[in-house]
C-alpha cells in the first residue's frame, strides 16, 4: 500500500475515509488469518472485526517499527486465540498414541487446492489447528506457543507432531478422493 503512513496518520485522527481505506486493504488478509483459526465463517468475521477495533484503538502504540501488516496480524492472532480460549475450545489430547508416519508426494501436493487444504485444516480439532497455525504459518517457536496457550514447550512440540500427521493423513485422503473423482 503506497500511502500507508499517511493513511495511518489520518486513522489516528479518526478519519472515517482513511479507516475505510485501511479496512479495504487489510480486512481480506485478516479474515484469511481468522478463518484459519476459527472455522465458522461468521464467527471468524466477528473476530476479525474485533481485531480491527483493537488495531484502530491502538494505532498510537504502533511506532512504525516492523511492518504494519505484521503488527495487525499479531493482533488478529491474539484476538482469535482469546476468542477460542473464551469458549474453552483449545483442548489437547492427553493420550498421544503413536501415529504412523504418513508421507505425501509432491504430486499429491500439486493435486490439492488451497480450498481443500483449508477444509482439511478446518476438520482438525481446534487445538491441533491452532498449533499448526501458530507453528507452521505464524512461525512462533514452541516456547512462545507454550506461553500463549498455557502449555509446556514439550506438549506443544508433541501436539504439533501429532497434528501434522493427522493433517497429512487428511490431505492424503483428499487427494485419493480427488483421484477417484476424476478417474
Amino acid at each position: 500500500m503506497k500511502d500507508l503512513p499517511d493513511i495511518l496518520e489520518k486513522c489516528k485522527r479518526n478519519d472515517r475515509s482513511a479507516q475505510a481505506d485501511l479496512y479495504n486493504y487489510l480486512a481480506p488478509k485478516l479474515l484469511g488469518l481468522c478463518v484459519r483459526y476459527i472455522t465458522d465463517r461468521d464467527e471468524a468475521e466477528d473476530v476479525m472485526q474485533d481485531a480491527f477495533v483493537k488495531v484502530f484503538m491502538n494505532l498510537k502504540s504502533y511506532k512504525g517499527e516492523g511492518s504494519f501488516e505484521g503488527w495487525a496480524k499479531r493482533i488478529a492472532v491474539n484476538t482469535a486465540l482469546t476468542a477460542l480460549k473464551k469458549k474453552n475450545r483449545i483442548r489437547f489430547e492427553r493420550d498421544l498414541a503413536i501415529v504412523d508416519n504418513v508421507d505425501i508426494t509432491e504430486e499429491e501436493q500439486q493435486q490439492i487446492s488451497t480450498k481443500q487444504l483449508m477444509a482439511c485444516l478446518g476438520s482438525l480439532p481446534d487445538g491441533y489447528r491452532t498449533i499448526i497455525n501458530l507453528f507452521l504459518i505464524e512461525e512462533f517457536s514452541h516456547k512462545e506457543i507454550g506461553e500463549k496457550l498455557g502449555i509446556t514447550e514439550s506438549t506443544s512440540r508433541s501436539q504439533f507432531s501429532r497434528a501434522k500427521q493427522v493433517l497429512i493423513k487428511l490431505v492424503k485422503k483428499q487427494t485419493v478422493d480427488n483421484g477417484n473423482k476424476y478417474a
Partner: protein
Amino acid sequence: MENKEHIESFIKQSLDNLEVQPGISSFEISMKKLEAAQKEKRKKRIFIWFFAGIAVLGVSSLVLFTPAVKTNNTIASGVLHSDIQKPVPSEAPVSRDEISLGKVPTKESQSIAEVNINNTAVSVSPKKKMGSGKAEKAGIQPTAASTPVLLATNRESVIVGIPTNNEVSRSEPVWISLPLNKAISFPVTVQNDSALKDAGLLPELISPKDSLPAKKQKNYVWYAGAGIDPQLTTYTIQSNKNRDAKYAPVFTDIYSTNRQNELRKVWNYNASLKFGFAYKRKWMLQAAIAYQYYQYYETVYTVDTIVSPGPPPVIVTSVVPNSNGGSVMSFSSGSNLVKNEFRHMQVSVEGSRVFNFKSFGIRTGAGFSTSYLVAANTLVVDENHAYTYRHRYNGAPLNKWMFGSSAHIGVVKNIGNRVQLQAGPNAFYNLSSMFGKKYLIAQRPYGVGFDLNLLIRIN
C-alpha cells in the same frame, strides 16, 4: 524428514497469504464496534478523572478544614524576665482563651507576670510518652538543653511550657504553672508532680485539652466520601400479561417452572461516591452516584427440534402437535455456560435516623434509587427456535431505566473530628423489571448487601 519439511513449506505457502473477502456490511459493523469501544474508553477515562478529582477534593478539604493544632514554638530568645516582687493586679484581664494551648501572651499579660528565668533552662527528658496532666510519669529532669516558653498567664500564675525535644510529641508540651506571688529561685529542680506540689511550685497542672473551650456543635454537617456495596441478588419472575401469544404455552408449561425453581443467585458490585448532610447528628440524608456491575453465568442448552417419531430426546422442552397428526419435539442436546453482564449507573437517595451512643451510632433508614443501563451483554440472539426456553433472553428488550427501593441499618463510627465510617447490611427490591413492558416475563432483582462507606466532613 526432507519430505516433512517440504510439507510444512507447502502448507505455509498455501495458507500464509490466504485472503477472504468479508461481507458487505462488515465495515459498518466494525465501525459500530469501534465507536462503542471508543465510547467505553471515554467513559472509563471520565470515571477515572472523576474519582481522582473527588479524591483530590477530599484530601484537600481534609487538609484545609482540619484545624491545625498550634503549638507556640516561639522561643522567647531563652529569656523571660519577671519581677516577682511586683504585685499582681487583681483586675488583670485574662480570658480563658489565653490559657489555651499555643496562645501567644499579650503584652499586657506579659507585663503582669514576668518570671525571671534568666540563664535558666528547664527541659525534660521523658522516659515515657507524656499524657496531659500526667507529668509525674515523665521523669522530669533539669538540663540546659531547651528553653522554657511563656505560654500564658492568669492572675495567679504564669504558665511555662517546655518546648519539646525529639522525644516529646509537639502537641503535648509539658505545662508547669508557677505561682506569681511566691519567690522562685532558679534553677528549679523538677523531680515530679508531688515534689513540685511540696515546694509549692505547682498549684495546678493545666492540661491543654482541659483548657480548651468546648466547641459548639454545628446543626448541619456536610459530608462527602465513597463507599462499596457488594450485594447478593436474586430475582422474582412473573409472567407478563402482554407477552407474545406464541410463547404462552412454553412459558406456562416449562419456562416458568424451570426458571422459578432455579432462584439464581448473582453477586453484583457497587462502587459509589457519597454526598450528604446530617442535621443535629440525628438525621442524615445521603445521595450517591454508583457504578453497578452484575455478572452471572447461565446454562444455555442447545435445543434441536425433531418431528416425531424420532430418536428419544434427552430433555424434552416442548411438544407441539403438527398438522400431520404427529408432533414437533424440542429437546436439549447439550449445554454450555454463557456469561451475562449488566452495568448500571445508579443515583440514589436515602434518609436515616441516627441513634447516638457513647462511642458509636446506629443508623437506620430507607432509600430510593434510579439505575440507568449503561451496557449489557446477554445471551446471543437465536430467534429460529421459538420454543427454546433457555434462549429466553434472546433479543430481550432490556429496560434502560430501573427504579428500586432499599432499607438499611448499620453502625456509624466517627474517627476524629472529620472522618465517619458507616457499615451495615441493606436490603433492596427493584420496583421495575429488567425487561421491557412487552417482554413475556418481568424480572425484578431483590437481595441483600453490605454497605461500607467512608465519609469526610467538609464544613
